[in-house]
């Protein structure tokens, strides 16, 4: 096995943030999806991204994870520019993501979905894998255990051998997070992980994300529409509207930002809010 690139020393200084967006722009033809968005995510924080529909949140995720090329600006990972790298390279650097419109491997079992995430560790020497000798079986057993543990974190271990297609909506979201975690990320991008969950499940997920941060020393960048949940969960928030970052700061700060209130409630209502 080669050295894990995440453990290799990077050129960036120790003080540089984990992820830094520098005047990031994205245009689709005449549509400006993102307009000079800048913010930095520090190691270990849960950073929230909120904004009305169409504000460019998912586009931002697509840019960070390498699915969409940026039209301008730069993404820096531990101080190094990563713009232009493909999604597989970005994942190997330690950035994993989930998808708003779930993209599971439906015909595979839950366990296999997670094993795909673990694939960099599942690479056995070819001869070993073909013969299926004791070394391979031991490695395989260890991996299946790892996969089982990851599934257990999300309460999915009992269904490990079910096909992913048979899961409920909420469980599909959980499985996507488990699969992303399996790739061993330092930064987890969660795109509306609580969508389709009931309030109790949302609370549970909230606690779980917090716990995952501790357990895996994760940094989390999360998109979610449920604002109260975000206020509770996030250390800091950025608010996007029409592709522009209109606010940045602690939940308390963002909550009282007039630009945010206007974006969410409209100009009239913001006046009403001030009267209250």
């Amino acid at each position: 096995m080669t050295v894990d690139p995440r453990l290799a020393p990077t050129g960036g200084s120790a003080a540089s943030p984990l992820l830094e967006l520098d005047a990031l722009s994205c245009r689709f033809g005449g549509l400006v999806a993102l307009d000079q968005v800048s913010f930095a995510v520090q190691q270990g924080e849960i950073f929230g991204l909120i904004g009305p529909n169409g504000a460019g949140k998912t586009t931002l995720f697509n840019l960070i994870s390498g699915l969409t090329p940026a039209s301008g600006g730069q993404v820096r990972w531990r101080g190094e520019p990563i713009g232009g790298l493909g999604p597989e390279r970005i994942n190997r650097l330690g950035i994993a993501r989930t998808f708003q419109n779930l993209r599971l491997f439906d015909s595979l079992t839950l366990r296999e979905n997670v094993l795909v995430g673990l694939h960099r560790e599942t690479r056995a020497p070819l001869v070993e894998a073909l013969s299926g000798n004791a070394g391979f079986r031991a490695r395989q057993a260890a991996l299946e255990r790892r996969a089982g543990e990851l599934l257990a974190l999300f309460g999915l271990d009992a269904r490990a051998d079910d096909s992913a297609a048979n899961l409920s909506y909420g469980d599909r979201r959980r499985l996507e997070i488990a699969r992303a975690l399996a790739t061993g990320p330092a930064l987890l991008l969660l795109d509306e992980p609580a969508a389709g969950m009931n309030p109790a499940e949302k609370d549970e997920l909230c606690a779980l994300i917090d716990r995952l941060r501790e357990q895996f020393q994760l940094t989390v960048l999360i998109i979610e529409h449920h604002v109260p949940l975000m206020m509770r969960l996030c250390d800091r928030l950025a608010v996007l509207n029409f592709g522009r970052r209109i606010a940045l700061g602690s939940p308390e700060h963002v909550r009282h930002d007039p630009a945010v209130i206007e974006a969410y409630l409209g100009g009239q209502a913001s006046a009403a809010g001030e009267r209250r």
Partner: protein
Amino acid sequence: MDPALLVQMLIGALLGISVYLPLATGQLTLATPAFYAVGGTLAALLSTRWPVLGARIDGSFPLPSFLLELALGGALAGLLALLVGRIVLRLQGIYLAIATIALVEIVRVAILNLPFTGGAVGIFGIPQPFPSAAGYLLPALALLLLAGWVCQRLEVMALGRAMAAVREDELAARCMGIDTTQVKLTAFVMSAVLAGGTGVLAAHFLNTWNARQGSFDSAVIMLAFVILGGSRSWLGPVLGGLVLTALPELLRPVGDARLVLFGLVILSGPALFPQGLVTPGLLERLGRLGDPAGRPGAEGSRP
């Protein structure tokens, strides 16, 4: 049953697996006949033109030379796949299928027109490593078992899981850090190596070889192997290859109507068994029969 027909059926099964392998990564390529032709032409040329291999005047051929040809045929086809795959695997869906049909045509026209491949007549009098058709059963079966074993191992290997992931959702697979280009190329090369080796076997078995051996028509028939048999397990194309190769011969007594019947089978197969004859559900049931504990997720019962 006639041993010659059995050998043909096994060759059909091998070519079925060759079409199945790229399909297991979700890539529809019809390049198998091109690699089959490359292997066959190489074997025909080497065994008739290269005395070092030891073809004798009575038409016999040493077995080690045959095995060497198998390796060379597989290697040459694999090399060609490596070069071509880098380019054509950028395409997807129907565009990839068309590009690989073009490859089949290029190889066919090249073999037809090269000064040393015998033109339209081809190369004949290819020496025989085995005294009778029955002798070819053993290498054909060995090749099929080898291919099947590799496919079976893939089910539990990281590469096999990566192939399934690429088939299910290439974009999500890339976001899991899987180099999907590499995975697709590997499957394409494996497919080519198998087709090339099968071509070597077929060239000796058929005794003559010409450009008609690897044509677009045969690509469609090979695809029918996978469609009828099912594309979710390597057993599908094996079954499809065996059945669809045997059928035209078994139907010979009905005369000209056999082609109509053959066509009906190909048509009704997908209509009656949209997932093919060998489906994940069938394999699961078979797996449970073989394993009384019924451990789901064990090697044999993977959906």
